[in-house]
C-alpha cells in the first residue's frame, strides 16, 4: 500500500513518519506525475492559502479530481481539511471542493488559543491526543457523511465516503491510530476495485 503526502508546504515529514509507523509505504508528492501509482493521499497541515495557491499553479486541482474519481481515499488534516471542503465560511470559492462539509478557518482564534486535549474518536480511539493549532472546525457534515469526533459541541473529525478530515494534527503525536483508520479505508477501496 503506497500513500502520498502532498508536499507543497507544511508538516510533510511528520505524516510520512506516522504513515510508516502505521505500516504503509509513504512518499512526498510535489508534482502531479507522482500521484500515478498511489493508493491514497494525505493533505497535511500548513497554511491553506499557500498550499491552495501552489495546487492551482501546479495542476493539482484537476489531477486530484481525477484521483478522487478513481475512488482513491484522501485524508486532510487542518489545512488539508479546508482544502478538501466544499464550502468555507466567509469565502466565495472552495479549493478542491471534494468533501461535502462546511469548514470555518481559524475558528478557535489565534495561536495563543491553540490547545491540546484528549478526545474520543468514533472507530479510532476512546482517548486520542488531539493537537489544535490555529485550527478550523467543521460547521456542517452533509449527505451520507459521518461525524467522528466533536469537541466543545463542534465537529472536529468527519468521514464522507472516501474522504477523511480532521481539524487537529494526529501527525504531531506518536499515536498512529488515526492513520491506521485511514489505511483501513485505503484497503477497503482497493478491495472494491478487484482485478478485472
Amino acid at each position, binding site marked *: 500500500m503506497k500513500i502520498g503526502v502532498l*508536499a*507543497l*508546504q*507544511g*508538516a*510533510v*515529514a*511528520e505524516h510520512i513518519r506516522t504513515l510508516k509507523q502505521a505500516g504503509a509505504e509513504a512518499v512526498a508528492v*510535489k508534482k502531479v506525475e507522482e500521484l500515478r501509482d498511489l493508493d491514497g493521499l494525505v493533505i497535511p*497541515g*500548513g*497554511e491553506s*492559502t*499557500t498550499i491552495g*495557491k*501552489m495546487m492551482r*499553479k501546479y495542476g493539482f486541482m484537476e489531477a486530484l479530481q481525477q484521483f478522487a474519481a478513481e475512488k482513491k481515499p484522501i485524508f486532510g488534516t*487542518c*489545512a488539508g481539511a479546508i482544502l478538501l471542503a466544499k464550502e468555507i465560511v466567509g469565502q466565495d470559492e472552495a479549493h478542491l471542493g471534494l468533501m461535502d462539509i462546511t469548514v470555518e*478557518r*481559524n475558528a478557535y*482564534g*489565534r*495561536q*495563543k*488559543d*491553540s*490547545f*491540546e*486535549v*484528549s478526545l474520543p474518536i468514533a472507530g479510532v480511539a476512546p482517548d486520542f491526543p488531539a*493537537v*489544535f*493549532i*490555529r485550527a478550523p472546525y467543521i460547521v456542517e457534515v452533509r449527505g451520507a457523511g459521518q461525524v467522528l469526533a466533536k469537541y466543545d459541541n463542534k465537529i472536529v473529525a468527519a468521514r464522507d465516503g472516501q474522504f477523511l478530515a480532521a481539524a487537529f*494534527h494526529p501527525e*504531531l*503525536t506518536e499515536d498512529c491510530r488515526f492513520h491506521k483508520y485511514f489505511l483501513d479505508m485505503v484497503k477497503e477501496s482497493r478491495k472494491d476495485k478487484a482485478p478485472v
Partner: protein
Amino acid sequence: MVQVGTDRVKRGMAEMQKGGVIMDVVNAEQAKIAEAAGAVAVMALERVPSDIRAAGGVARMADLGIVEEVLKAVSIPVMAKARIGHFVEARVLESMGVDYLDESEVLTPADDLYHINKKEFTVPFVCGARDLGEALRRIGEGASMIRTKGEPGTGNIVEAVRHMRTMQSQIRKVQSMSYDELMAEAKTLGAPYDLLEYVHKNGKLPVVNFAAGGVATPSDAALMMHLGADGVFVGSGIFKSENPEKFARAIVEATTHYTDYELIARVSKGLGTPMTGIEISKIGDADRMQDRGW
C-alpha cells in the same frame, strides 16, 4: 483536560510553517501582497532591516498601530519582533494576539546579559542563532523555532550560509560522537546537556530551523533549503526589490521546488533588480547585528 501553550502546540505551530516563506511587512497593504503571493506568515515591523540599518539609533518593538493593522489585514499568522531581553515588549505583543514572537537581534538589545525566559509565554518564540550552541541555549530558554541570524538587511547571503553550514556540521559531529564525549561537548558548546543528547540521538534540532538574514533572490532561498533549512524568512529582500509582488511569488515557488532548477530559472526571469546588497566587510563591528545576543 485542555492545555494551551504546551511545547507540542508551540513547536507544532512552527512545523506547520515548514517549506514556506515568512515575509517582513510594514503595513496592511504589504501584508496583503505577501499573503496573495503565498507567504505562510508575515512579520509586522515598523521598518525592514535595511531601513533600520540606515536609520541608526535605537530600534524598538514596532508601532502597535502597525501591528494591529497587519493583524486585521490577513488570515495567515502574524509575527512581530521584541528586543532581546525585553519581556514586556513580548508580553504586550502577546496580549495583542500576535501569533509568534521573534526575540530579534535586528532590534537594539534591551538586556546585554539575559534573553527572555520564553517558557513562561503561551505564544511561541523564534530566535536567531549562529551555531549549534547558541541554538540549543535559546531552545533551553523556551524557543520553539530557530532561524539563522545571517546578517539582516544586507541582501548578502554569505552569513546565513555560514551559520547554517556551521550548525549542520556541528549536528553531524555530535551525532557521530560516543556517549562519553557528550558532556565535554556540552561544555565546549555551552549547550544544555539534555538538548545535546536529543541532537545526538536524532541528528537534528528538536525544533524547526529556518534560514534568515540576507535572502534576496529565489536562488538564495533555494540554496538555504539545500543546506538544510526547513523554510525561509525574507526581510528586506521583497519590499526593497524592484517588483515586490513578482519577487514574493518567485521566492515562494523556489522554496517549494528548490531542487527543480528549470523551474527556478523560469520564475527568476524578468524579475527586475533585487535589493541593493552590502558587502559584509564594509560593515563596522558596531553595526553587525549578528553579534547581538550570545
